[in-house]
């Protein structure tokens, strides 16, 4: 502010000096004219005044000039300083930008490396998945072949094809065949579990009526039930809704649950396979299937972990009837792949009810069920 005022004053001084100089010059000129008209004394006075004015003006002008020069010098210095300051700022900003650019490039390179590593890791995991599945497939295939031969030869002897057998021999052979059947189920479950682990347990749903499949599952289990002296009774409601389901897997689920019920029932008991339509929690129609037995029941501490794959394999408490095996975890996975739910109620010495639901087929749109891929416990361990 002071600087500005100073500048203004200096400028005014310069203007004033110019005016004074001009006035002095005019006065001198006037004096010269006066000399020509009004006598020597007046003329001399006027001339002196004019000269004095001129001298004063010159002095003032000289001083102002100096001030102007100073002012001009000051202005030049200011603008140079300003220019320098701007240059410095531009340099700083440019350097900042350069640094940022380098940082961004480094970050980008890092991200690209990470992405490449993740892609490679994914490929490895996928290859490993395929190897695991292939391994389980080969192993289960290799196990089934000798198992077939063992079972067949036992049956051939039991059936008297190569000679008579007495009752005791027949009983032994029956037990051996039953063990073969058990082993066959384990091998099948093993393969299914492998596919569970690698996310390849897929279902191929079609729209189907459940009644014939429920009957087929029951028929399939009747021989085993008969061996145990257990009856399977069907209570199927007349208006069962169609469902979108994989027919083989549907029969597998029901068969599995019936098999467990038979195993845990005493001779003379009846197992009920019930089914009807009901409304689900979202108000949509669903198919309800229940397998009810009056057998020994499952202790509540085991109920909690009953769908836990690992618990079945490690637990040695559930061994009265040879264990539940991998059947229930598989059932749950299969039911959930069908967008259904499963639950178990059980009381010791009273029996067990397993119920599952599957959404009914919708009329308007095709329900497309996709296999679910999710990180499994095995991969996280």
């Amino acid at each position, binding site marked *: 502010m002071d600087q500005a005022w100073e500048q203004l004053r200096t400028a005014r001084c310069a203007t004033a000096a110019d005016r004074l100089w001009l006035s002095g010059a005019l006065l001198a000129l006037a004096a010269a004219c006066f000399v020509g008209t009004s006598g020597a004394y007046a003329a001399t006075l006027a001339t002196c005044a004019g000269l004095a004015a001129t001298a004063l003006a010159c002095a003032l002008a000289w001083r102002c000039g100096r001030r102007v020069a100073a002012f001009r010098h000051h202005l030049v210095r200011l603008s140079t300083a300003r220019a320098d300051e701007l240059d410095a700022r531009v340099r700083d900003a440019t350097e900042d930008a350069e640094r940022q650019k380098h940082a961004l490039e480094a970050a980008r390179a890092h991200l690209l490396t990470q992405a490449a590593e993740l892609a490679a890791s994914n490929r490895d995991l996928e290859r490993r998945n395929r190897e695991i599945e292939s391994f389980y497939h080969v192993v289960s295939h290799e196990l089934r072949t000798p198992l077939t031969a063992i079972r*067949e030869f036992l049956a051939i002897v039991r059936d008297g*094809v190569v000679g008579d057998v007495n009752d005791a021999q027949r009983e032994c052979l029956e037990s051996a065949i039953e063990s073969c059947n058990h082993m066959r189920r384990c091998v099948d479950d093993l393969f299914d579990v492998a596919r569970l682990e690698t996310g390849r347990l897929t279902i191929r749903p079609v729209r189907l009526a459940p009644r014939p499949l429920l009957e087929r599952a029951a028929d399939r289990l009747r021989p085993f039930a008969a061996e145990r002296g257990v009856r399977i009774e069907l209570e199927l409601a007349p208006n069962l809704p169609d469902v979108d389901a994989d027919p083989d897997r549907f029969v597998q689920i029901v068969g599995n649950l019936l098999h467990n019920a038979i195993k845990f029932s005493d001779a003379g008991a009846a197992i009920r396979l019930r089914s009807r339509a009901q409304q689900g929690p979202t108000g949509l129609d669903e198919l309800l299937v229940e397998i009810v037995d009056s057998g020994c029941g499952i202790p509540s501490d085991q109920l909690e972990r009953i769908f836990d794959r690992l618990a079945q394999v490690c637990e040695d408490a559930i061994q009265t009837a040879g264990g539940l095996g991998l059947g229930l975890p598989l059932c749950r996975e299969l039911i959930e792949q069908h967008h259904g739910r499963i639950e178990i109620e059980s009381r010791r010495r009273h029996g067990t009810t397993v119920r599952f639901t599957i959404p009914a087929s919708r009329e308007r749109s095709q329900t497309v069920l996709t296999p679910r891929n999710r990180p499994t416990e095995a991969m996280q361990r």
Partner: protein
Amino acid sequence: MSKILIVEDDKNVLKALVIRLRAKGYELVTAQDALMALSAVRDEHPDMVLLDISLPGGNGFEVGTKIRAEATLAATPLVFITASRRPGLRERAEELGAVAFFEKPYDSQALIDCIEATIGAPAAP
């Protein structure tokens, strides 16, 4: 109508099948790989073929396809048996017009019933 060709590479499974079916009275021919299977079909003209799917030198489906491609053999009933659980096998068997598809370990009574239903009980000796 009672000659059956059994194509199976595992000698014990083959032996068990032979014992069962011979006891029932069927005439039997056996082969243990894809090549032998084809020449057996051409030479013996069996009334029915039981085909294992995994075979040395090919697989049961390839043999089935070649059988279907030859006019004189095309109508031969085929039954596929497999120890594999890979998806899609049953469908391939159906595409080849198979009479039945069994998974090992198979139910031998069901297999016998299927054979009898297709080519009848064996001719009386």
